[in-house]
């Protein structure tokens, strides 16, 4: 059974169809990339999967269960966690606090236990602090963990967004342009990190513009254009797909990773 099945999902904003009858599925342990020109509907697709916006029609099935219509925090609780295209952090907390707070779903203490600092609640927080430090070290943020998030340079902000998502211990991670704004070396490091995340058992779906990164990292690529899925396949197939080349016409060839 695939971990994620998108079944004919459509999202209309007034007269504009942002996502048009898109279907595909993702197997457990895969890295799947969603590519397409600006405005193709990639971010909207992620918002549909994570239930941040309701679809006009169609549905999302996760582990055999329909999650469309559930509130977004409930979808996150089940293990489907998204990051944001715009860098999104808790700006007035330190990097470490951001990731500690993000462990919210992992709390074993009750609300009252948390309020009265029960032994369980305290043990939780000690665990979260250790885990947060480990996640930050893994993502190369160990040295800046005491910095306020609002003072972080852009590249670090992206990584922090991923750290926050990882703290929830997702089963399916949706990364919206995780390599945006990174130079070649930074992207190489980040690509390895995403592989590492997958190797720990997290299925990854990502939206990305950096074609060379996409070609290296993905098991499967979905191509969107004007909300429609125009191709799906392994990186090698996508590279020689006529419809894809058409959609990217006018762009230099190297964008397709040649």
């Amino acid at each position, binding site marked *: 059974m695939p971990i994620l099945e998108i079944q004919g999902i459509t999202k209309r904003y007034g007269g504009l169809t942002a996502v048009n009858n898109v279907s595909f599925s993702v197997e457990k342990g895969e890295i799947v990339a969603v590519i397409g020109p600006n405005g193709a509907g990639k971010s909207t697709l992620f918002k549909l999967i*994570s239930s*941040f916006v309701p679809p006009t029609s169609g549905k999302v099935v996760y582990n055999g269960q329909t999650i469309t219509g559930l*509130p*977004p*925090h409930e979808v*996150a*609780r089940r293990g489907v*966690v*998204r*990051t*944001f295209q715009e860098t*999104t*952090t*808790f*700006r*007035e*907390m*330190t990097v*470490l*606090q951001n990731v*500690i*707070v*993000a462990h*919210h*779903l992992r*709390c074993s203490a009750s*609300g009252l236990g*948390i*309020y*009265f*600092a029960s032994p369980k*609640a*305290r043990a*939780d*927080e*000690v665990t*979260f*602090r250790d885990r*947060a430090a480990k996640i930050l070290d893994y993502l190369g943020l160990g040295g800046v963990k*005491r*910095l*306020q998030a609002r*003072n972080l340079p852009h590249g670090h902000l992206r990584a922090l967004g991923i750290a*926050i*998502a990882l*703290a*929830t211990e997702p089963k399916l991670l949706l990364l919206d342009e995780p390599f945006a704004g990174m130079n070649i070396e930074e992207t190489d490091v980040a690509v390895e990190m995403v592989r590492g995340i997958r190797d720990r058992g997290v299925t990854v779906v990502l939206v990305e513009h950096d074609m060379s990164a996409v070609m290296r990292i993905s098991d499967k690529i979905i191509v969107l254009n004007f909300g429609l899925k125009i191709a799906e396949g392994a990186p090698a197939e996508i590279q020689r797909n006529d419809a894809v080349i058409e959609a990217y016409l006018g762009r230099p060839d190297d964008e397709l990773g040649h």
Partner: protein
Amino acid sequence: MDQVTDGGGQSTAGEAGGAVTRWQIISFAGLVLLLFVGVPVIFGKLPYFITVLTNAAVLSFISLGVWITFSIGRMNLAQGAFALVGGYVTAVLATRYGISFWVCLPLSGLVSAGLGALIGWPMLRLKGVYFAMTTLSLTEAIRLLALNGGDITKGATGIVSVPPPGAIRILGLTVVPPFSSANPMPYYFLASAILALGLIAVWRLSTSRLGWVFRSLRQNEDLATSIGINVARYRVTAFSLCCFMAGIGGAFFVAFQQNIYPSTYTIADSVNFLLYCFLGGLDYLFGPVVGAFLLVISFELLHAVQDYQALIYGVLMIFCMLCLPNGILSLRLRRLGERQHSKT
């Protein structure tokens, strides 16, 4: 100082669910000593001052509620409305059904909290100025409701001669003697106890994970949702806690003044609760307390300018936002920060 926070002012989430900082213990112990020993010793023979301080204590308790809604990123101008609700609950129950004040007090808090949850659920979807405007109209709406409440609220006549709180006896032992309108001292002690308990309760809240969740909502509701936080539920929790405190405060003032009218809390009062928070500093638990005591006491001392209270409050609010965006308490902390800086 700006870039790195090192557990000085606020504890880090996860330090055993909110470590107590030395400063908090010192300021809290100082406040308790001042309230329960210092003031009675110094002002015990001056009923007028005791009355002023009683007002200030409960007004800061009510503002502390507004401070909680600030922590989730909402500017709440409905606190007067919920104080009015709490006040009427106590007034009606005490005069009509002869129910003891000690039962009315928590009931008033609970009714306000319940009503807050009910109204807050849809209203808290609004943000910024939209939420502020809606809460402002709510203050007016509740006042009109009280004005037109017929036999229950007695309209503009208000409910008068509410009996003062009776004695509390446990197993025949008088724990609390009966209150009387002639002596403000018992009211003062009750007000101080309410404030001290309120401060402890809110301090626990803001240093625990719940406080961090509240602040995460203020900083980014979408991100909070994405990590599995039920944003709507926490918003309503924060808001109804705030309303609970308004209800308790409203009930106290009914017992203190022995009456309540629709005009007891108006939009001006809702704005003042907010102003106390601004003036003291939104980042500090003691902000609303400092703000309320400072303004209430200074206005009592400056009898001559009381006609211009609204004007002066307005100018103060603007001054605060322009010159002291982090409140009076930020001055102390800034100095402290500089001192620590020069040491290293």
